[in-house]
């Protein structure tokens, strides 16, 4: 029982970052209809920016996470404006292949810049775990969970309460009508891609110090983000949050009770099963945003 509780807590920490990744991707996929295979590379970018900020500049952990978000959002903006905007009328396959190209370029650029050896990211938290009754949690992991929750809440507020968020929801529901009502679709797409990429970078900056930073870390992150999107339903923010937590917990339980070698298979199996039996996701009657 104690062991189960411990697995649940670990799963929650992992799931919080998966939710961040998934929210970013579900916005991009749902709103722009772009299958963004480069999503995981923004996650990797976040981890490396955090590594540079903490290791070299020696800044505060908060500042490092903010720097990662800023870098991810800026690069996401550039990607959208230069690559995706000219291809807006093209088929979904074309943009998907372009994002695969971006994925390859970013990953190998990271490999050239940082080398293939995994980097351990320094963090200011004590390593002694906090013991709360039957479970132990490292202070860093607790901080990751809290910050992930805060970022998810902020994204939700952005989409529900701001003018930009309302424009995003309108674009998701009906792009042409939104454009006729004076929503600048180009601006909304760029903002969506920047927001999604920024959230992915945040996830990387948060999870990087928990594990290690290495150039191919984004490959599995991309697939897990897709798994979360499929679990939650396209463009569904609460769905992606729940889906992320669910995936994190399922992975921890799978690794703990079945086999740690097949930990990453959990996401793949979920993708296949959900697409087969509940293609619109577990939590939604239909596709929607926020």
């Amino acid at each position, binding site marked *: 029982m104690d062991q189960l509780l411990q697995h649940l807590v670990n799963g929650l920490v992992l799931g919080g970052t998966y939710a961040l990744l998934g929210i970013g991707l579900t916005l991009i*996929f749902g709103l722009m209809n772009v*299958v963004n295979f480069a999503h995981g590379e923004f996650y990797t970018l976040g981890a490396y920016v955090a590594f540079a900020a903490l290791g070299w500049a020696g800044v505060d952990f908060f500042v490092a996470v903010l720097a990662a978000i800023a870098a991810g959002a800026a690069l996401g903006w550039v990607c959208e404006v230069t*690559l995706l905007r*000219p*291809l807006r009328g093209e088929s*979904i*396959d*074309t943009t*998907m*292949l*372009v994002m*695969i*190209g*971006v*994925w*390859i*370029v970013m*990953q*190998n*650029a990271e*490999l*050239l810049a940082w080398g293939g050896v995994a980097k351990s990211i320094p963090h200011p938290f004590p390593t002694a775990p906090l013991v709360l009754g039957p479970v132990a949690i490292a202070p860093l992991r607790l901080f990751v969970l809290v910050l992930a929750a805060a970022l998810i809440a902020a994204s939700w507020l952005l989409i529900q309460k701001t003018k930009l968020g309302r424009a995003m929801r309108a674009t998701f529901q009906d792009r042409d009508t939104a454009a006729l009502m004076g929503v600048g679709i180009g601006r909304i797409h760029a903002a969506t891609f920047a927001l999604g990429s920024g959230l992915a970078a945040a996830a990387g900056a948060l999870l990087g110090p928990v594990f290690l930073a290495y150039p191919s870390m984004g*490959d599995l992150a991309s*697939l897990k983000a*897709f798994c979360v999107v*499929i679990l939650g339903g396209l463009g569904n923010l609460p769905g992606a949050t729940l889906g992320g937590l669910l995936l994190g917990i399922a992975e921890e339980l799978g690794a703990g009770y079945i*086999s740690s*070698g*097949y930990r*990453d*298979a959990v*996401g*793949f*199996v979920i*993708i*296949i099963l959900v*697409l*087969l039996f509940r*293609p619109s996701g577990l939590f939604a009657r239909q596709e929607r945003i926020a």
Partner: protein
Amino acid sequence: MTRIGRWLPALVALTLPLWLSTYHLHVAIMAGIFGVLALSLNLLLGYTGQLSLGHAAFFGIGAYTSALLTLRLEWSFWPALAAAMALAGAAGWFVGRLSLKLRGAYFVLVTISFAGVISLVSVNWIELTNGPLGLPGVPAPELGPWSLRTKSAYYYLVLAAVALCYAVCRRLVNSRIGRAFVALRENEPLAESVGVEVTHYLVVAAVVSAAMAGLGGSLYAHYTRFVSPEVFLFTYTVTMVIMVVAGGKGTLAGPLVGAVLFTVLPETLRAVASWQWQMLAYGLLLVLLLFFLPRGIVPQISAYIAGRPRSDPGARAPSP
């Protein structure tokens, strides 16, 4: 012109071992194996319009099946090759059945997940696959009394496989089945409404395509004589996709042109650029191709030969 265009490549391909060095022959063999793989991917991507990003799984299944049967059960090469194709084809049937109702991005995700699971199995099922260490000492194929150990003999084996796959693709594409594939790609509801059993043909395409990739995997295993979980690397799938997109998807010659180009190019670049720079260039090239040559090399050239440098009516300058 067209007759020369048809016979010259065949003549060059047949006489290649006479005037190439061993190293260059190695490049030619790899181009041939990738030619088989690109033809296989093109059947799905180019003709039915469904992108499989799990094609390395069928390639890997073929490679492992062939290697395990010849190593553990001491089968000879030919039945092992047939078994590799059959098992890869069965995997294709499974994926095709699984994704009957899925199109576009969702089809891609199912294929990629399938490949992910298979790859994890190859790493973790150590009793069968020897895990990450791989299987060394895969025997060279034999044809009657002769061993196909030499590069030139293996070259002809691969060439025969390429010719066979090309012929199968050509026959299939020009048949009723091929027309059903294209109908499915162009307008699925319309195809269905005139009585084309769309899902049935998608499964047929997946099975043939996967069996062909399995053939490529078997040829690869008996050529490099070593199989490890690296055969499932996503790089292989991406390479196949780039070959098909660059050469021209939905054409018969396109994948072969792409395969030759993207095997020879990295080998020539090898002296001046490291692997990472090459992959970086690959990624850039993929993006540039999609922007500037979206239909691929072969359709562009045939449009040029036909005297229509811009066959796309939208690209023509408007008349004043």
